[in-house]
């Protein structure tokens, strides 16, 4: 009887003949080297987009929301579509770090850092929209419940928009803490390797005086678990509350009890897709294929096909209920405004269906799951599809609601509406480029933690051990 049974399905999480030093070298090297020309080009594009976004927002704040093509019937359009889209993207990070940590999924270590960073940047981008979609953004502080000299006048705790304020800010705070606490040991590593005084100082400050003592590690582990415990319900609650913006309203197409699970599944779906898009590039550019392996990509593609199918079921359920309820208003929204291809926005519904439900089914094939190009292409498709989903929910519900007299003319965005969206891409990638340059994109400490258990090079070392019977093992190793 052999003491260890090795799963035939489970692949190594780290490839190559690595030791601890090599891991550090591999991951920290890009931080210490000069940025490549590619980095500069990318960063420049990102900052340009950001500047365009800033100008678009400037126009909107100065001249009014009329800079956008929203109207009396369609009060929300690209603004809230983009908000929900970014928030959705911001889901994968916490799911990967918190939920997978709790479930002891070792494979998370390769991707969690970048995924968490992406979460934080995505939530930052998302936050811009509810703030700047306000007609009077300079009065935005009215949404804060604090004792004031205006009565005191309190916020309306019944409003889902207020719940959003709490949900998003809590999520952002917890995600940021989680991410940062994970960064501490790695910052310390970078600090210890620093070759200039400035680096040493800055990374020293960032590392919060981490020494790697057992006490530090013990507290770090506890903190990680506590934050993981806090974040896990947030993964579910944030998008649930975002979905309440719609579900608690009276508008046909919004007023749907299915929204919370459907939104959460959609968020994980889009979040994983975004993680895929970024990691496929990062692993290539930084040569981290040994750490972010095909196995990781495979696993995440499985999540994508699962959540994509959940979302698909939700779509079909909505259609079914649109008919089964015999509610003519819902029936119209679901069957005409959305599902009828030749209705004015029919293209967006079928775009969503094609991107979110039909195309991810390709991932039933293992070959496709493990193909980097297919993965990258699909991750883009899924994010486009999820953008369509939010657009479909918001615009096709609003533009033809109860009173036919109020049905809207065709809504298409202005350049400034698009500019705002582009600007958030600029913000996202500016942050991401800086992150990739200055932060370890893979959790060094955590890789080391799984290295000896799941590293490829440690497999041969185990062969002898594996050949031993339990009795021999007990005999040889019982000291």
């Amino acid at each position, binding site marked *: 009887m052999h003491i260890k049974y090795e799963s035939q399905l489970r692949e190594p999480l780290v490839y190559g003949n690595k030791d601890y030093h090599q891991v550090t070298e591999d991951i920290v090297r890009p931080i210490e080297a000069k940025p490549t020309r590619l980095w500069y080009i990318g960063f420049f594009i990102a900052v340009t987009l950001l500047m365009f976004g800033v100008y678009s927002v400037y126009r909107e704040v100065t001249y009014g929301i009329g800079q956008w093509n929203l109207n009396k019937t369609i009060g929300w359009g690209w603004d809230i579509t983009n908000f929900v889209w970014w928030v959705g993207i911001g889901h994968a990070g916490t799911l990967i770090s918190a939920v997978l940590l709790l479930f002891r999924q070792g494979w998370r270590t390769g991707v969690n850092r970048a995924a968490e960073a992406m979460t934080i940047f995505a939530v930052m981008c998302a936050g811009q929209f509810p703030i700047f979609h306000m007609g009077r953004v300079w009065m935005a502080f009215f949404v804060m419940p604090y004792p004031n000299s205006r009565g005191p006048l309190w916020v309306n705790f019944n409003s889902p928009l207020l719940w959003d304020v709490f949900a998003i800010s809590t999520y952002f705070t917890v995600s940021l803490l989680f991410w940062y606490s994970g960064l501490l040991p790695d910052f310390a590593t970078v600090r210890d390797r620093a070759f200039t005084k400035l680096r040493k100082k800055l990374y020293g400050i960032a590392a919060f005086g981490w020494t790697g003592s057992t006490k530090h590690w013990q507290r770090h582990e506890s903190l990680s678990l506590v934050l993981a415990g806090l974040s896990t319900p947030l993964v579910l609650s944030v998008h649930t509350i975002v979905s309440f913006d719609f579900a608690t309203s*009276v508008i046909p197409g919004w007023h749907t009890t299915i929204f919370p699970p459907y939104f959460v599944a959609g968020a994980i779906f889009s979040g994983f897709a975004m993680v895929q898009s970024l990691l496929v590039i990062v692993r290539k550019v930084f040569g981290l294929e040994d750490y972010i392996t095909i196995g990781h990509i495979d696993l995440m593609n499985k999540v994508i096909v699962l959540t994509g199918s959940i979302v698909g079921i939700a779509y079909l359920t909505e259609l079914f209920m649109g008919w089964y309820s015999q509610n003519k208003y819902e029936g119209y929204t679901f069957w005409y405004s959305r599902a009828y291809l030749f209705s004015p926005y029919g293209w967006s519904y079928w775009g969503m269906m094609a991107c979110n439900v039909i195309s991810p089914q390709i991932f039933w094939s293992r070959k496709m799951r493990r193909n980097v190009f297919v993965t990258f292409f699909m991750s883009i498709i899924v994010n486009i599809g999820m953008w369509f989903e939010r657009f479909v929910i918001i615009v096709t519900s609003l533009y033809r609601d109860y009173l036919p007299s109020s049905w809207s003319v065709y809504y298409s965005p202005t350049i400034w509406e698009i500019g705002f969206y582009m600007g958030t891409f600029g913000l996202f990638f500016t942050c991401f480029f800086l992150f990739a340059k200055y932060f370890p994109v893979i959790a060094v400490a955590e890789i080391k933690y799984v290295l000896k258990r799941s590293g490829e090079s440690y497999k041969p070392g185990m062969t002898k051990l594996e050949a031993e019977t339990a009795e021999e093992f007990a005999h040889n190793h019982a000291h």
Partner: protein
Amino acid sequence: MEQKKHWQSFGELNQSEAFNKEVKDEFTSELPMVEDHSGFLSAKAPRRDFLKYVGFSTAAAAVAASCEMPIKKAIPFANKPEDIVPGIADYYATTYVQDGDVVSVIAKVRDGRPIKLEGNDLSPITAGGTSARVQASVLDLYDTARLRFPLIAGKEATFEAIDTAIAGELNGNIVIVTSTVNSPSTKAVVAEFLAKHPGSKHVTYDAVSFSGMLLANEASYGKRVIPSYHFDKAKAIVSLSADFLGTWLSPVEFARQYAVGKKINEKAPAMSKHIHFETVASLTGSNADEKYLCRPSEIGAIALGLLNAVKGAEVTGVDAATKKGIKAAAKALTENKGAAVVVAGSNDVNVQIIVNAINDAIGANGTTINFGAIVNYRQGIDSEFATLVDEMNAGKVNAVLFYGANPVYTWPAAEAFKSALAKVKTTISFSGKLDETATVCKYVIPDHHFLESWGDAEPVSGHISFIQPTISPLFKTRAFQDSLLKWSGNTTEYINYVKNFWSTQLGSENAWNKALQAGVINPETPSIAGASINGAAVAAATSAVAASKPSTKIELALYQKVGIGAGQGAANPWLQELPDPVTRATWDNYIIVSPAMARTLLNIDLNNGGQADAYEVQPPKKVVKLTAGKVTIELPVLIIPGTHPNTVGIAVGYGRIDSLGKSVIGTGKNAFPLANFNGQTVSFDNSNVTLTLTDQTYPVALTQTHFRYDTTQGNRTEVMKELSLASFIAHPTEIREERANEYRGQMAGGDKMTNEEVLANFEKDATIYPVYDRPGIKWGMNVDLNACNGCGACVVACNAENNVAVVGKPEVLRGHEMHWLRIDKYFSGDMDNPNVVFQPLMCQHCDNAPCENVCPVAATNHSSEGLNQMTYNRCIGTRYCANNCPFKVRRFNWADYTGADSFPNNQEGEVNDVVMNMNDDLTRMVLNPDVTVRSRGVIEKCSFCVQRLQSAKLEAKKASRPMIDSDIKVACQQSCPTNAISFGNANDKHSAITMVRAENPNRNFTVLEQLHVLPNVTYLAKVRNNGEKHEA
């Protein structure tokens, strides 16, 4: 108490010199600054200075950049004028007059400036009703394009200079061209002037004249007059495309009368029956019980057929559908002899003679048509004007004076007229603005606006309505009458002239003062008289009409819009932005075609979902070139069901000269050249036009794009309830049952309830939330859809009362219009000839309002009186409330439309010129100081005129009495000519609102009731007297 002296040293005690020196130089040594010779500190601006400068300049830059706020000053009176109490409104009775139209009004004057007009209840003619144009006329007073001084050859001049110059030129053969003048004193002034200048004459010229009718009456009855009509006494009304609710003769008066026959007493349901022969969809046709489509050229044949039919003869010469209509009309008329009336919009003398014959045959004369009270709204005879043009060409005219008339714009052969005018030496216009005629006149002496004028009007013989100024003239303007008096050598000023005129007539100055205060004098006993018809004239007309064949080509019918009229409303932004009741379009004219013609001409089939969608959601409409003889016009096309398949319509009144103001620039094209003078009268129909589709499109700003409430997923009967009188009588509780069945499923145990139980318990049982008592006042409104004819007076009244911003065409195109009250229009039935219903929709003030609970900052909330209130300065503009409003009545300030923003310079280039013009200091004088001007980024909506409610409550409180219904009239209710809107305290058992709901249980409904939002606005279902069984 004695002051104790404390000291620390003898030096201090003695104030020694050494001590004082030490105190003075306490810090004798230098501050311990490190001497640095690197040059920085020894530079001219050492570190501290540098920091100071940085700090100061940063602060200064920040202050300079951020504190640039537009400064608006409010300066109190140094000396308080008599009669003006700041904040307290004064009301003066006066009269709206424009080109013969007369409506008695009360002007509300705040701080010396008129800001709102209300109908004068003392006038039996309009009975407190107004129209959109009346409501908007107050804005014309503050029009920035008004002439501010007289002109000689386009240059500023003084009155003295003009008087001197003209004195030498007025030497006989003078012609005064006016639109209809129905002012007795003005007529006297004109007569005096004509007497002083021999060979002179007065020609009345109306842009859209009633010559045909006047001449027909002369032929039929020997009197060139128009009798008064009494639609209220008619049980059967047949209209041969006369738009008497919209633009024909006296629509405010007729709307009120018409509504009398349309309002239903549920206990004994009865209605008048209105059969309409329609060429191009019109407001009146939309309200008809039965509507038959016909060509303009068929009207004569139809009139003839109807005459034959009422006499029992056979109907010939018309197609089967029309024949059916004629028979139905004849049946209705003959069944209601003595309580029936026929009117025709045609300007053809023969058609009108035949209509007279029909009216004679059905006993209308002396009952529904009253020759005892002659109306003076239109007196112009087209042929007299045509003769004048010939005389001008022949050089027989020395001088022409234009007052009200604007023939350079409205005469079909305008170019010929212009060249004739060029042959006249002296041309004088009294237009208040530089209109088309004034532009080519040598002298322009701007007249006052009616709110600055003295005067009188006699709309109906014996009924006098007085005009008194409500503000002193804003500019260097002079009354037309004053000029004439001066030029007649009469030194009396017109103000004294009117006063003397009426003091003499009424017997005393006291009586004059009293009459002026009331605004109107009415005859004590209204006289009713018939007239006997001249059979020979009828016979001649019959043979003339029988000889003319209806056209087989595509025909054109020119029409007037409710707001714009013959162009009088074109320069008024409120009227331009008022959605036309028929098309829901703003800011343009266009070609109206039927759905049938759209299929062949435009390749758009409204029955095809995709094509209909594409047509509806895209504002650019296809442009068609219309050719009539030598005249062509290119306009966008709107498809309006209810139009004859081979007839197209174009509104006149557009395409005006730019000098009239920002509102007319780029709005529509002039259609008057498409009319033609046939030697006797001007005809606004053309029986042979050709249409060519161009490859261009042109955006038309529609405020409503979809007009049907049925979908393939079900008929949205919760939105609108309409049924026929026959089915209402047969089954009065049909609507109650329909409502009960709609809600039953939403209520616990609903399936076991009777219909009445469902309705009674709906509020309580269809929710999981507790139901609250609502004691005290509970404001409620009711709109009777049977009385409402969709005229739009309420929309403009709401604009004026509540400072609703004008946004201009580009913004309406983007769905950014701000109207708090809109009139939705729905079609039902056959799309080629549909039933039409209008539904005024304002904030429904839901007791369970979906907008209230979604606002994150509680900017919209519920008052204890049932008002859904909007707190503008709390609003942060998330627009969630607007999204969640099922009625979509909430309006967002997309841009700085009002200049009320704290951001400077953010309008230029972003808002339309028209909007900028509405922000002019002059235009802003029209604003109601009781209502906040909303700034950019906030939501606004109907407030139930809360400022009026508060003031009514306050008045009642000051008088120590409970508030009663008559204390309050909200703006829309007050403006309504048909009293379709009731408003009041629904908790008061005796209030009108409670009564109207209690008396009409079978027609009462609220829109989207199944949502359980519990609106405080109720509607009474539309009942149509068309005898059809309702199929729901």
